[in-house]
């Protein structure tokens, strides 16, 4: 078992004929994901890699292939519409990799997704990988992961790779690694993911990688204190970030005195969640908080 995706995941790739879409579709297939369909309007009838059927719409893809999960690699201007299309077509989980979606578009798309009862991950996220099931949906590199009992959740991309790589190198395999995205408005937040990890029997401990901006980490800290039985280790990026500057991610910005790394670290400490000061400290804290997890 893992969170949000597993062996039953039947994936449709939106934007499969594009540069990023085709590259990662191949990577996902090679890792073991059951890639059942692709969508590019106007390219319906083609075969991707000689075998995966391409459709003009997600609706057709779902009807023809029973796809239940979608991953989106379309341009930012069309991403919110692609999300709504997938939700309308009836998939259960949507992972939106696309970066740069206007925030008002997401403010309108999110209620649409919720009306349809879908789970949206992202946008502007690296997606999910479940090493125990060898399934991935997104762009997380398969080379750095290993099967195990740690759930990883993060707002960033390469920092997650760095942390996951260190976990794997130090003998900590993962149940699921999830990048929830660096935008201010996202479909799935830390709490949603922590809930999923708490109820996933294969996850024994969680590594949470936060960053400056917003209050998602603070709310996660409250949630952990109130609801979680499994140990959590946290790391917050952006301790040296100046006020008022967007640090790459649209959501990574300290406004006035709000959303600082310090505030988030304190929230976790108050919730008795050990916080690593540097990435390489994470495995050490994990060893203390959840002894015996090393493979």
């Amino acid at each position, binding site marked *: 078992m893992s969170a949000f995706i597993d062996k039953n995941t039947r994936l449709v790739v939106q934007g499969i004929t594009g540069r*990023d879409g085709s590259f990662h579709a191949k990577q996902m297939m090679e890792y073991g994901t059951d890639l059942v369909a692709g969508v590019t309007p106007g390219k319906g009838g083609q075969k991707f890699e000689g075998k995966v059927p391409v459709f003009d719409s997600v609706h057709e893809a779902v009807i023809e292939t029973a796809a239940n999960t979608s991953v989106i690699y379309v341009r*930012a*201007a069309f991403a919110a519409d692609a999300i709504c299309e997938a939700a309308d077509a009836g998939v259960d989980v949507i992972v939106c990799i696309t970066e740069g*979606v*206007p*925030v*008002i*578009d*997401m*403010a*309108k798309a*999110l*209620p649409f997704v919720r009306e349809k009862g879908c789970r949206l991950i992202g946008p502007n996220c*690296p997606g999910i990988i479940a090493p125990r099931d060898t399934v991935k949906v997104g*762009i*997380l*590199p398969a*080379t*750095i992961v290993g099967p195990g009992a740690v759930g990883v959740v993060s*707002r*960033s*991309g*390469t*920092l*997650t*790779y*760095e942390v996951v*790589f260190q976990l794997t190198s130090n003998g900590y395999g993962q149940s699921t690694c999830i990048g929830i995205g*660096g935008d*201010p*408005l996202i479909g799935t937040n830390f709490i949603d993911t922590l809930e999923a990890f708490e109820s996933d029997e294969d996850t024994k401990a969680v590594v949470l*990688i936060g*960053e*400056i*901006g*917003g*209050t*998602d980490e603070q709310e996660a800290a409250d949630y952990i204190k109130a609801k979680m039985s499994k140990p959590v280790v946290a*790391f917050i*990026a*952006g*301790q*040296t*970030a100046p006020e008022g*500057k*967007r*640090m*790459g*991610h*649209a*959501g*990574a910005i300290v406004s*006035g*005195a*709000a959303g600082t*790394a310090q505030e988030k670290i304190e929230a976790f400490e108050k919730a008795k969640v050990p916080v690593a*000061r*540097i*990435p*390489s400290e994470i495995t050490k804290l994990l060893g203390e908080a959840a002894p015996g997890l090393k493979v």
Partner: protein
Amino acid sequence: MKIHEYQAKELFRADGVPVPPGEVARTADEVYNIARRYGKPVVVKSQVLVGGRGKAGGVKLAKDADEARKHAETILGMDIKGLTVDKVLITQAVKIDTEIYLGVIMDRASQRPVIMASAAGGVEIEEVARENPDAIQRLTVDPLHGLLPFQSRVLASKLHDDFKVIRQIATIIEKLYRTFVRVDASLAEINPLVVTPEGKVLAIDAKINIDDNALYRQPEIESLRDLSAEDPGEVAAREMGLSFVRLKGNVGNIVNGAGLAMATMDLIKTYGGEPANFLDIGGSSNPEKVITAIDIILGDPSVKSIFINIFGGITRCDDVARGLVTAFEKLDIKLPIVVRLTGTNEAEAKEILAKMDLPTADTMDGGVKKAIELAS
């Protein structure tokens, strides 16, 4: 993206928010002429893209044109939080009875636009929030329904007692929200919105931040960008699709991915160094980006070493290595550069770099330590 007060006022005016007459000037003579033409008391306001202009002495009331010129001479060329004032806005002064705060932000928690309003205007809203949070009214707007007329009216009625004034404020709230949506703002603020002793309501300050992600569909707003008011490094980085923020330290760094870039900055600090910047070259494998990144960092004379930290996922390490080779050919690089490349095509990258005899590291901890050492 930030825009100037005078630009924000134009955007508000276009949607019908009442704003007192004003003009922009770049010299004290121009200021004098404008103030003389108005023939009334004016306010001379520095136009720089930071808050706290008033406290810094960048906003002054002048009773006549001569005084306006005097103020302009002081303000033009002034340094406010590191930015040089090169233009001022001259607006007709307005008699003030009460000051109101009105703002719209995109709220992360509710994932909706939220209108904030306070009868305690004229001071920073963060200050009000800290000292008297009950004085702030919050109205969450469903972006699908939009702002409904009764919502504006009910909110306005909490800001004043006189219904004639309330009606004006309600209309201004509607227009403020319209501007917010129209220009893809992440923040739109009027502080203060003033009520004159005659009961007229006017926006005498204005602030709008634009959602960078939406600029592609807002060419007119994009054209308001004041490049002269920005760090040239940040401008160059943006043009190449990089994300760059200048800091005050001496250890430059180039990283792929925002989270890893922040963590790298933090690690430099943790190990006793001072990061010179935040620089995210993003996810693609374009060698030109590496060249631009090095070039930008080299433009800062206080930088003493550079740490390149690449975790190859989508980014292929060999592309980064090739960019480095080209950069060394094209640029006159005298600084020590420590390289850590790991992940996709790591072996190929190491082969390419072997010929260049650069200091390398296997981990980010090791790389950071070496870069700090080389900077001192």
